[in-house]
């Protein structure tokens, strides 16, 4: 199954031709504590086109959140650049950056803590307008109302209340509403659904899809639930220990992962179906410490297909098929094309 | 660790230096000067000029400061203008008194506040808790100068359990020393009990709401064990921070109690020195107190790291 990617989803039709909105080059983020340095993100590059949704997946602690925060410049990059609509965000002055803020927004991993517990929902959502002094008080109130309505929150009962009076799902929607009030062209969503139960999760994913359709929103969607990522993304990037290991169209990636880590990820997905039989051995071993990552390929310590070369040489990210990049010396696509999986049985 | 110590030492030097300048300026800005006290009624213009020259107080301030601070660095704090006692000796005899007062009062405060808080935090706002709260606030409303005479009337005059006044150093006679310290220590203890009790209680209440307490219960551990081993330690931060500030304030801040109990501690000595414009004594004590304060904060910070491993040094 080589060749062009399968027909993209309904909403990704023009993504490939669309102009690049976000361009990440050689991004490195380091945390320092005392003498120790943790490279949470080590040298990753990717781009996101206008109107596209890029999914970002990977093991817990691999640097997804850090990447997301570096994109919106709340986490300073150690090196590398983030270009947004042609501007290098890292080089902007404080004032210029502040102006750019409205166009690129982030939904934080923990929706509850990203809302000020002491402020009323109405004020929180109106904050972007208040900051920029947009419109009169009444205009703002009207905008807040319509935005709350569109994220499925009743503005009449909710407006006067404070975040802690809402469930996680509602908080998530409120923080989405706030992010959208700024009318961004790009939205970074950091695990917006991981703590939510399936029904709330479904509501939010639908909402994002609607927004994307309505506003042509460009998104980076971070999650660890692969089914969710697949559902929302046009393309998916897989991270492992601070590195980008695979990047492909989502259907393509799920159909035939080229990196052993991606394959292991797919295999570990619990199917909500008691009849489903898993074909792969689950991944074993602990995530190596980012303090001293393994030499060569970082996945080699847990890779079932490891070879000598993996320890000595770091695999570069390269294309195995058009639009499908992988960082592996022995990508699964070349060694043995993965047989198409039997369609999961549904009830 | 070494780097940390070095950094701390650096802080100590800087803070000590700033304080030395401030103290120096402040005492020299005080109205009146030592000649008034020393010469008293013999304060004639002539005598005063002579005395000022004798004491080196006729030099420009910055020179005086320089002379003083360079002596300090060679370990010489000078001597009292009034009694001619060496400042080093005043501090050496006074510091242990403050230290003992602090130890006695704080040990008692902890000994009362901690068990009380451990006892009441499990069932807040119950009668026992209300009684304890009321009681500790009663203590807070009674300043040491009220408590001291009452204690003396009861425990010294009526019961003759403890001496009414006086201080014998520990090295001279440990038993008498401890005997002497009880009442003044208790007079200082009251306010600390209230503050510590309140802080620990409220922190304990928060801690007891933590999941890890339920987790500990789910292991079948006894309530006592949970309070002691699981709840207490994570609840001691405010307590330690408050104790740090409080103990710092007690350093040379015990004037009233030392005055009432006729103890020549630093608190008493520094106030007397201020009243007598005994510059070198004030400066010496203030400097030592400042250094002690920095060291104290160092200890508190260190205790933080002991109590909570998440807190790191640097």
């Amino acid at each position, binding site marked *: 199954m080589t060749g062009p990617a399968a027909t993209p989803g309904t909403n990704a039709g023009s993504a490939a031709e669309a102009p690049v909105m976000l361009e990440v080059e050689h991004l490195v983020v380091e945390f320092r504590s005392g003498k120790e340095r943790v490279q949470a993100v080590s040298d990753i590059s990717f781009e996101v086109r206008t109107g596209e949704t890029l999914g970002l997946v990977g093991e817990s602690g691999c640097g997804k959140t850090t990447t997301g925060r570096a994109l919106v410049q709340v986490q300073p990059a150690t090196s590398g650049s983030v270009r947004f609509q042609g501007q290098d965000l890292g080089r902007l002055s404080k004032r210029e950056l502040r102006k750019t803020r409205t166009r690129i927004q982030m939904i934080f991993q923990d929706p509850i803590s990203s809302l000020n517990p002491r402020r009323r929902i109405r004020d929180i959502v109106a904050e972007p307008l208040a900051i920029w002094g947009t419109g009169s008080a009444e205009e703002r109130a009207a905008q807040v109302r319509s935005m709350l309505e569109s994220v499925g929150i009743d503005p009449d009962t909710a407006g006067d209340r404070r975040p802690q009076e809402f469930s996680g799902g509602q908080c998530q929607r409120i923080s989405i509403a706030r992010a959208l009030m700024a009318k961004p062209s790009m939205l970074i969503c950091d695990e917006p659904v991981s703590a939510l139960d399936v029904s709330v999760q479904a509501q939010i994913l639908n909402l994002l899809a609607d927004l994307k359709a309505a506003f042509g929103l460009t998104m980076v969607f971070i999650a660890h639930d692969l089914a969710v990522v697949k559902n929302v993304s046009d393309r998916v990037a897989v991270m492992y220990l601070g590195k980008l290991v695979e990047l492909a169209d989502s259907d393509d990636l799920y159909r035939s992962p080229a990196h052993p880590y991606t394959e292991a990820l797919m295999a570990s997905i619990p199917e909500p179906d008691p009849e489903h039989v898993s074909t792969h051995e689950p991944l074993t071993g602990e995530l190596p410490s980012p303090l001293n990552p393994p030499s060569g390929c970082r996945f080699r310590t847990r890779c079932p297909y490891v070879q000598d070369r993996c320890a000595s040489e770091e695999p570069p990210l390269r294309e195995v098929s058009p639009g499908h990049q992988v960082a592996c010396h022995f990508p699964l696509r070349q060694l043995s094309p993965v047989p198409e999986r039997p369609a999961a049985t549904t009830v | 660790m070494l780097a940390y110590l070095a950094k701390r030492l650096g802080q100590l030097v800087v803070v000590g230096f700033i304080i030395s300048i401030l103290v120096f300026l402040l005492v020299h800005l005080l109205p009146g000067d030592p000649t008034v006290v020393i010469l008293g009624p013999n304060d004639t213009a002539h005598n005063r000029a002579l005395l000022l020259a004798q004491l080196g107080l006729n030099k420009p301030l910055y020179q005086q400061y320089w002379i003083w601070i360079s002596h300090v660095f060679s370990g010489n704090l000078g001597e009292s203008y009034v009694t001619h006692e060496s400042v080093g000796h005043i501090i050496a005899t006074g510091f242990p008194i403050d230290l003992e007062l602090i130890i006695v009062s704080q040990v008692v405060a902890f000994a009362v506040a901690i068990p009380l808080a451990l006892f009441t935090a499990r069932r807040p706002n119950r009668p026992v808790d209300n009684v304890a709260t009321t009681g500790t606030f009663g203590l807070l409303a009674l300043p040491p100068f009220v408590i001291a005479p009452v204690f003396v009337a009861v425990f010294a005059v009526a019961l003759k359990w403890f001496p009414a*006044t006086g201080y014998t150093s520990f090295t001279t006679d440990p038993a008498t020393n401890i005997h002497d310290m009880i009442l003044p220590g208790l007079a200082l203890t009251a306010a600390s009990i209230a503050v510590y009790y309140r802080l620990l209680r409220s922190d304990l209440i928060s801690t007891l709401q933590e999941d890890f307490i339920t987790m500990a219960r789910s292991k079948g551990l006894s309530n006592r064990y949970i309070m002691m081993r699981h709840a207490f330690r994570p609840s001691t931060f405010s307590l330690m921070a408050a104790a740090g500030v409080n103990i710092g304030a007690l350093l040379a801040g015990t004037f009233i109690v030392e005055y009432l109990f006729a103890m020549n501690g630093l608190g008493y000595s520094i106030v007397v020195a201020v009243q007598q414009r005994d510059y070198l004594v004030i400066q010496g004590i203030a400097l030592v107190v400042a250094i002690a304060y920095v060291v104290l904060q160092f200890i508190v910070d260190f205790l933080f790291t002991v109590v909570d491993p998440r807190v790191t040094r640097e």
Partner: protein
Amino acid sequence: SSSSSSTAGTKAQSGTAGINHGTPKRGGTAIIGNDADIDGFYPPSNHWDNNGFLYANCIYDPLMAVAADGSIQPYLCKSMTPNADYTVWTMTLRPGIQFHDGSALDATVVKNNYDALQASLLTGLALKFLKNVTVVDSMTVNFNLNEPYVPLPAGLATQVGYMVSQSMIDAEKGGNSNPTPVGTGPFVYSSWLPNNHFTAVRNPHYWRSGYPYLDQITFRPIPDHSQRVATLQSGGVDLIVSTDPVTITQFQGQSSYQVVDSLSDTLGEPDMSFIMLNCLAAPMDDLRIRQALAKGINYPAFAKLFDSGLNLATTGLFPPGSKYFSQTGYPTYDPAAAKALVKAYTAEKGTPTFDLATVTDARLTRVTQVLQSMWQAIGCKVNLQAIEQAQLISNTIVGNYQAVTYEQFAAPDPSINYVWWSTTTVAPVGKIALNFARNSDPQIEAALVTGRSSSNPSDVIAAYQKVNERLAVDLPYLWLGRTSWSAVADSRIQNFAGTILPGGKPGKGFDNGSFFSTQIWMEG
């Protein structure tokens, strides 16, 4: 023996508390609670208050001392005789007296003592009349004066009469400003921890053979009055010294305590409590205001409030019974007259407004509150100031005050107070003046000169009566009473207020808060 019996016994013998003539016992340690510490033991560089003399009387002996009859008696010296015009006094020392370090008391050491005293910034002023002291022979010195000074022996019963050893003088000259005290006194210095305790032990080689009775004497300064009382009651000290009249009423009549006080002391010049007015500062520069203030004090009420009625109305420097006593004509309580005076003043210069300053002391702040209330009742506006001691002294010296509480003038002889009242020591406000009240009265000056230079006792008495009367006219001082010194001892302490001078005469026992410890003994 129980105190009641001993007190009763004492009364049977002498009629005075604190003076016992029973059989003395040897040994024991007396612990005395006093109100503050000495500032040092070297007479040239310290100034001694009652506590200073308490300590000094243990370590040192004075050249002269006051006897119970008011006469000045030789102590360390054998005799002292003036020349005809009282400008040269020849003193013969008692033979065989040794300092604690074994050195002998001779003419040289006395001369060296005076050289040091004269050179001192502190004591030099008090010895202004003294040209020098010269050695005549090993046991004889001459005091050569600049001017006639008749009451010189009384002057030598003060701080400048206490002789220290050559070793101390040398040590001081050598740069040790705090030399170990070495005297000829009944006790030998043992330890001094300022503001904690002072201890001296029996001098086995004391020249007054048989004395002292005690093995050891310890002084513990306890600054707070009630705590000092509590310490006595709890047995922490055997004797306390106090200025608070409450002490007297509290303990008088209690069989287990003996109380002596200075209220009936008629010798020399007593310690006076008064309000000092700055005669050069408005509104006190107007005599009418000073008069109004004097008339405005409801003295009977005042005495009842403060001295429990013990302190008799005071009209001047000398109490009835003193040889200097006379009716001074000091104004009595007359609110109507006071109001009229204030009214007159107000009409001219506006409401008299002034600060009444005091040190931060519970009793004195109470005094000032009462005075404020009384003076406001006659139409003055009084602000109370609590200022700490050093600043208060400083203010009074330069005249930066209007009215201030003061205690002063205790002296074996009134002449010693010359500088405080002399017109020669007045200076304008802002300049240093020893006449703090800045009262220039030529009549006082003349009387004072007579008082110190006349050898005729009746002239002297007349002179000081004149001073006293003039003060009642000029009103630089509003008398509040005598400072009510008292000592309270538990029943074990004997004879703390009775001392026999070397010549055999009884000495002045309790002298403004101090006493000799030579003949104290302890029972049981």
